[in-house]
């Protein structure tokens, strides 16, 4: 999977960067997409500043906290986002892209297990990938919206460490919040 990266040209939009995951996979990513990961952006900019002479060499950016499967998903989500440098004067293309993105998002969330979702959230947080974090956080919120406490506990494997009387007290105090909820 490791492929050679081109020498990043200073003003080219097709400049690529290489990211290395915790399980040693190398991902070649377009600069525009990689820059959405602010951690990567920071690293890249620091690199640029500190070694101007060695412009010719390519940097492999290590991401020891991100697994390849997770990074693959985040990269493909990043690609589907509207690019900041793209010229968007054709409204039709914008509309089609929006529709494609919606479809992609739906497909992505359909088969997502809670563990995977958490991985994506964690990784997006580590990479400082704002849009990804927002999207996956919202997906998680949508999952637990209006669901019963038991459902959420089961779904995420949360262990209930309350004494029964403590839990009872809480439920009584906020009785309103417990009404009209989807039972599993």
């Amino acid at each position, binding site marked *: 999977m490791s492929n050679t990266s081109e020498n990043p040209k200073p003003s080219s939009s097709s400049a690529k960067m290489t990211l290395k995951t915790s399980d040693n996979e190398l991902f070649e990513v377009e600069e525009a997409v990689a820059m959405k990961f602010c951690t990567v952006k920071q690293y890249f900019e620091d690199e640029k500043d500190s070694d101007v002479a060695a412009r010719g060499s390519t940097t492999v950016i290590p991401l020891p906290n991100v697994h390849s499967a997770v990074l693959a998903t985040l990269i493909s989500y990043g690609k589907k986002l509207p690019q900041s440098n793209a010229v968007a004067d054709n409204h039709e293309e914008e509309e089609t892209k929006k529709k494609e993105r919606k479809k992609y998002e739906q497909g992505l969330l359909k088969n997502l297990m809670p563990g995977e979702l958490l991985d994506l959230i964690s990784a997006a947080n580590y990479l400082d990938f704002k849009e990804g974090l927002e999207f996956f956080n919202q997906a998680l919120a949508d999952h*637990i*919206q209006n669901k019963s406490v038991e459902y959420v506990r089961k779904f995420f494997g949360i262990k209930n460490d309350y004494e029964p009387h403590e839990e009872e007290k809480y439920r009584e105090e906020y009785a309103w919040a417990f009404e009209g909820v989807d039972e599993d």
Partner: protein
Amino acid sequence: MSALRLIGRKNNFRELRSLGVSPFTIELRVRMEEESYGSSERSSTSSEESAPYSTDNSSHATNPMNSEEEEEEEESSSSDDYPSKRRKHGPIVEEEDRISTLPDSILLTILSSLCTKDAVRTGVLSKRWAYLWTFVPSLRFTDYYLRHAADYASFVDNVLLLHRASKLTNFSVEVEYNPELKPRVDLWVRFATTAKVDQLSLLLSSCFYKLPQHLYANEFVSELDFRACEIKPNGLVRWSSLKRLCLWNVALPKDVLNQVLLGSPRLEFLELRSCDKFNRLDIVSESLKKLVMDSYCEDGLELEIVAPKIESLEIIGEFYGMKKCQIKNASALVEVRLDFEITMEYEEEEQEEDHYKNCENVVRELFESLHQVKKLIVGRWCLKVLSIMSVKHLSCPVLNCKCLTMKTSMEKWNLPGIASLLQSSPYVETLVIDIIFSNHDSEFLDRIYDEVNHWKSKEVYFKSLLQCLKTVKIFGFGERFHTKDVFILVVEFLLKNAKVLEKMVITEPWVMQNGIHNMQLKFLQVSQKLLSFPRSSPHAVVMFPF
């Protein structure tokens, strides 16, 4: 911690570069890295070899705080293997509680997306979650479980008492209001403004709530949504950070809107939905970028918009007896949506005539002031007026638009309007036809016009049209099959005359996905016919993506 580790690695890279390592042999560099770290936990550099998969994934890289570099290669490269098990016939069950290990900041962001009712419930999940929700910077009381409004209000009060975040990003309340609740709602507003809320939404119903005076001077709020509220400032309005304002069913007498606009120098988005009490609305703003006017039910509205920076305009809904709608200095306007209707009650034919004359004037003036807009959406009713105008031999003003969308039911009486619009848009490059359902009556038109040959007779004038048309998209065909004759006519015409047409896409007809076999067959026949029409553009492609 992870940041430090990163820096450590950077130093190594620098060393490598100073050694003049070739940039093209990545495998070599990676191997050198390994040697420099002295650890040999990575058995391979390529992804083909995978370490044996292990179910114990506790140090998997979810938490940056405790992942180690020298960790065992625990996961296979297959992306499907995850520690959570899924019972075949049961709900999803997680084996371990990883969500609780996420840092507070992430959990709070997740809780922010929930309505407060759900957020409060999370407190009982486990002790770690106990009072996490009290720090959520977003409060949404938008659940409509209103057995008693008083109970609901008590719930809100209780939550506000326990709430601990010092800054609120969002405070939304949706409640059925009655005047007895006033002191409590006042307190809620006070609570929100003290917490320097960014977005405040009061969506009330059934009675009007008078906004407290202190709200009119607020330098933090950037978005306000009010429904069924009474805006009556005693002094100046000072909303210096306000960017978005949505008013729904709000009375705006005389100069109130003026005061609001004057006091909101940064306002970019304004939506007025079913507001009333003004006969004449002058919208004057230097900063406004987008305006949405949705419906007005009192008689005889005169609307004038002076917003030199405005880029997007939507006029939608029903306007009873609207007399005028003008935009002065629309040089920055890029996209406009005219999906509205002027309604009127009349008994005699003469009154009907007058009504339509008025409509024609409004539409014509509107189009004149929008002639340079690049993207235009013309709704069903405007198209109808254009049809009437065309039949009376009144022309539509010339438009410079490049992307034109028409909402039409593809019925006979739409044709003159479609023809007229195409005739007035010589520069259009993209044409979108959105076929919609309409049970609108066309009695008036039927009386003054009843030949489809009208279209054919005009065809000779169409030779010079469609010089720039490159793309045509048609949505929604197939739901109502009896309109296919008109549809075929239009498509035939487009194919024949659009000389630089590149593609025509006829998308997602409902009948193909859900229709009965018989219908689908008929539709395919129509498709065949369309494909057989002669095209004047040698490169034109007709696509049916379904």
